[in-house]
């Protein structure tokens, strides 16, 4: 059979038992990565807002970094979708003739409004630095900084005060916007009534919680790595504070996902027969071992042990990142693995060897590129803006630690 005549999906789907003749796995690796990236976006932003809105002083050294990290990820968020579309050139219709009964149609609005909030916040946060650079630097770099000031050179006490107020408002508005961006991704899945694994009103919240844990974990890992590479001092107070956030949302994620699973099993609707086979046999390793035990239970246990070390924080965060990726995989691929006839299975096998355009597009290379891109962007941003620099030194850190212990003493 010629490649052109192969059905879309036949390249990576293996069918067993009775599946409908048109049934293939239509949503593949791109749709696994898309919610993963937007989840990281939402989580990183929420973390930066913890400092700006709730005034968690100990998060100051990571507040700027997580904001810029969120932006770098946000820039890459639409690319897996574009890779996934079979008619990417038509995607402009999404903006020209959106059909608002469809959850996907809201993408442009949700995405662009969130982008506006993040960009504005970044501008306000780095404004004093940009102006300083614009005045100092000459040549191309000076030109870039000058353009970035948007013509505003006011760094008076009053202007800075206003800036801080605006940052607080933007960070506060950004939290519901981030929740919307990711809750809406959960809605896209939760509203698919033909896939029993997806169809639950809890889906937006499950996605949101896993988004936040992945985002916070992503920040912990990237921050520790970034600082270690630059041989900068890492403040333990910040890491501990981030881990605390991680623990709370980890508990919420475990509860929500657990409730969802228990309900599927307890109500045992028609689909439970095939779903239980998926959970306990075909996806047992991915779902129970990696997603649940390694991705949620073990990191929670590690984080709750007394005297948290940097290494333990790093390990738990890495495990959470892997666990959430597995969760996206289990939801997207696992959901489609159960035939809509409930009498067969579809197995997804990613085409590794790029012997055709479709095999290349669906293969590991574009996705690998996509996952590395945010870090390259972060590296570039760090060249222009002080993302990692201007951080706590040991004295600052000690001061915050002192504040924290005082707070603890006050509580007791």
């Amino acid at each position, binding site marked *: 059979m010629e490649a052109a005549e192969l059905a*879309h999906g036949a390249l990576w789907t293996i069918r067993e038992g*009775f599946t409908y*003749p048109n049934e293939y796995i239509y949503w593949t690796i791109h749709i696994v990565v898309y919610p993963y990236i937007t989840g990281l976006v939402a989580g990183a932003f929420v973390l930066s807002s913890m400092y700006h809105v709730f005034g968690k002083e100990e998060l100051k050294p990571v507040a700027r970094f997580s904001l810029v990290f969120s932006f770098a990820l946000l820039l890459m968020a639409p690319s897996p979708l574009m890779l996934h579309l*079979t*008619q990417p050139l*038509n995607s402009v219709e999404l903006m020209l003739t959106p059909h608002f009964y469809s959850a996907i*149609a809201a993408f442009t609005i949700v995405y662009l409004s969130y982008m506006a909030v993040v960009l504005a916040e970044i501008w306000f946060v780095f404004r004093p630095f940009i102006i300083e650079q614009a005045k100092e630097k000459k040549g191309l770099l000076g030109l870039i900084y000058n353009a970035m000031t948007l013509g505003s050179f006011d760094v008076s006490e009053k202007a800075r005060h206003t800036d801080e107020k605006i940052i607080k408002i933007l960070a506060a508005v950004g939290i519901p916007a981030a929740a919307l961006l990711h809750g809406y991704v959960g809605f896209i899945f939760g*509203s698919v009534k033909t896939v029993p694994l997806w169809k639950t009103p809890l889906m937006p919240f499950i996605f949101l919680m896993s988004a936040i844990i992945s985002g916070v974990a992503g920040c912990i890992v990237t921050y520790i790595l970034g600082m270690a590479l630059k041989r900068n001092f890492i403040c333990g107070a910040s890491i501990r504070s981030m881990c605390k956030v991680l623990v709370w949302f980890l508990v919420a994620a475990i509860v929500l996902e657990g409730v969802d699973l228990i309900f599927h099993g307890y109500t045992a609707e028609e689909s439970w027969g095939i779903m239980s086979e998926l959970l306990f046999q075909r996806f047992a390793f991915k779902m129970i071992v990696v997603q649940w035990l390694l991705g949620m239970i073990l990191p929670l246990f590690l984080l709750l042990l007394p005297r948290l070390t940097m290494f333990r924080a790093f390990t738990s965060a890495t495990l959470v990142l892997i666990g959430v990726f597995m969760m996206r995989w289990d939801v997207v691929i696992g959901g489609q693995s159960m035939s*809509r006839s*409930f009498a067969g299975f579809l197995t997804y096998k990613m085409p590794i060897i790029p012997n055709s355009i479709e095999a290349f597009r669906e293969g590991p290379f574009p996705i690998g590129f996509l996952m590395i891109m945010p870090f390259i962007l972060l590296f570039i941003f760090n060249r222009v803006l002080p993302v990692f620099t201007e951080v706590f030194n040991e004295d600052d850190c000690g001061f915050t630690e002192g504040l924290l212990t005082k707070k603890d003493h006050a509580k007791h």
Partner: protein
Amino acid sequence: MNLSRRKLLKMGLLAVCGTVIPLSALEIFKPEAAASLIHPYSEKKRWAFVVDTTKCVGCGMCVKACKLENEVPFDTDVQRTWVERYVQLKNGEVIIDSPHGARYGFTKNDPQGHDVDEAEVAKGLFVPKLCNHCEKPSCVQVCPVGATYKTDDGVVLVDRKWCIGCGYCITNCPYFARFFHPITNTADKCTFCYHRITKGLNTACSDACAFGVRKIGLINDPSSEVFKIINTERVMVLKPEYGNEPHVFYIGLDDIVR
């Protein structure tokens, strides 16, 4: 004019909201859309289909005819219509298959490729399937660009120029009637042969059926055969639990049919 700060903010907010919502958002307030929620059945012209499974022998001629008529590449394993075979053994086991959508017909007693002794078979039946042209099509609901739509006479179609190929409609069809067309790379499905029925012709599949299994007609037209069957015989639809109100009516369905 004296504007208070509060009033200015209020009016400003209103103006901003008014400009950011594109006009197309107002589509949800269309009177027809609202009316369709209240009166799902209208008295107007509405195409429907009847499948008499008791007459089907599984020859696959309908699948072949459909592929040729609608230019869906013959050798590709996607089809606008297909036939499923259900075999229930005496031990209660049910074997279902539809090799290549049955475009070559069922010629051997070998469900899922295993030879089955005739003495073991309790019952068997063939179930032809096609797009159900639902009254409340979930595929139309989720299309982000409005590329798939329902015509006034109840047929669900796809505009190939508009389709972005996201696959949301394919995922949302309970019957898996949809697929990506291998040439156009857009979502594709049965159209009830809209290009034929609007000219007074039959669908290609019903013309190709030698046994009178498939019938197309207007559900509100008392002179149509479809009207007579639906109103006088015991008919059933597939997967009514999804609430799509499918408009392909079956005679002789069984509880083993998926």
